[in-house]
């Protein structure tokens, strides 16, 4: 009895060993295949680079919501952002808001009239210390080391919305519904999103990669400037040096990369 049990166990052991050899051999075979072919993966030659991309918005150049419209339109059109009428389901990458919503804590009881009535463009601030990134359990959102853009990987987002709770600027929107039926004109070059993922402004990373400035900057007639925050010679640094600028909720320490000339 005993000896036969031992034999069976031994047989099992040898079989198990035999079974494991195949995948190992396969792995070796595969390695040979892939090293044989020389494939290179690289950045495009025209891609724009920065240590930390930043934006300066000259709010004096916007008088009414209508002045913001072309910028919002440009952004939402190329990124297939759906136009959902229901306020609870709304998807926004770039939008306008009042001074006291954009800068709570900086709004006095009585304000200069032109500031009071001026619309303020708001978007993701691509914070240097982004709380949304810390909240994300899947690394579906993270800060790109190469250029400081706080990026989204829609493939990986599980829709938990922790990032939305963590972002103090309401810069993120959740797809409560399939967005496709609500996209007026689809840009076929850019993917849409699906139900259950979060989205936000990506600082037009897909345009920077081919040497173009963000869409909103391009159509702003100079009201928006874009550049490297750590390049003292950049246009954004020049504007920050020569104008008084403020940032949203600076006191929270997220270090926003979007500056406002008021």
């Amino acid at each position, binding site marked *: 009895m005993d000896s036969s049990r031992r034999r069976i166990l031994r047989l099992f052991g040898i079989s198990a060993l035999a079974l494991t050899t195949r995948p190992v051999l396969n792995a070796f075979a595969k390695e040979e295949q892939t090293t044989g*072919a*020389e*494939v*290179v*993966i*690289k*950045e*495009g030659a025209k*891609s724009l680079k920065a240590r930390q991309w930043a934006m300066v918005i000259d709010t004096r150049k916007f008088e009414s919501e209508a002045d913001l419209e072309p910028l919002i339109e440009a952004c939402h059109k190329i990124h297939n952002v759906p136009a959902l009428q229901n306020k609870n389901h709304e998807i926004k990458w770039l939008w306008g808001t009042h001074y006291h919503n954009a800068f709570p804590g900086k709004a006095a009881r009585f304000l200069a009239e032109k500031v009071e009535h001026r619309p303020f463009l708001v978007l993701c601030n691509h914070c240097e210390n982004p709380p949304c990134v810390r909240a994300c359990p899947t690394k579906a959102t993270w800060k*790109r080391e*190469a*250029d400081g853009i706080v*990026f989204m*990987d*829609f*493939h990986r987002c599980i829709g938990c919305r922790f990032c939305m709770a963590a972002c103090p600027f309401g810069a993120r929107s959740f797809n409560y519904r399939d967005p496709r039926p609500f996209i007026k004109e*689809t840009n*076929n*070059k*850019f*993917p*849409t*999103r*699906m139900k259950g993922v979060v989205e936000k402004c990506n600082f037009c*990373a897909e345009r920077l*990669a081919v040497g173009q400035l963000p869409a909103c900057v391009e159509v702003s007639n100079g009201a928006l400037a874009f550049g490297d925050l750590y390049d003292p010679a950049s246009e954004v640094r020049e504007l920050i040096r020569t104008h008084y600028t403020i940032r949203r909720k600076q006191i929270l320490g997220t270090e926003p990369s979007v500056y406002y000339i008021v």
Partner: protein
Amino acid sequence: MKSKALIVTGVVIFFLIVLFPFWYMRGKAAPVPEVELTPKAKAAQKCVRSTEYMKAEHMQLLDVWRDAVVREGKRIYVNPEGKEFNMSLSNTCLDCHSNKAEFCDRCHNYASVRPYCWSCHIENPKEKS
């Protein structure tokens, strides 16, 4: 020992049920699907890599592309022949293979896989524009 007959019948029935599908479908293997190439794909003659490689490995290739583009911001793929491609499912793959139903779906249905690429990537970039 009394239940021997019962056990044997049970075993026989079990095997009958398990083997029934094999018997029922004997000799009727689903035909291997023929994929259709668009004129553009035909004219290009060669995909990013060889046909055999693409048949067997396109999912791994796409996985590498996705990670390189989304995670590392690298968007150019140089194949062993030195030809450069924009690593984009929407703008490179689906530009030639703009016939999802006759190309992608035929094989995927045969293999019973349901990739959800098209929930976000627009399936035939040309037609819908």
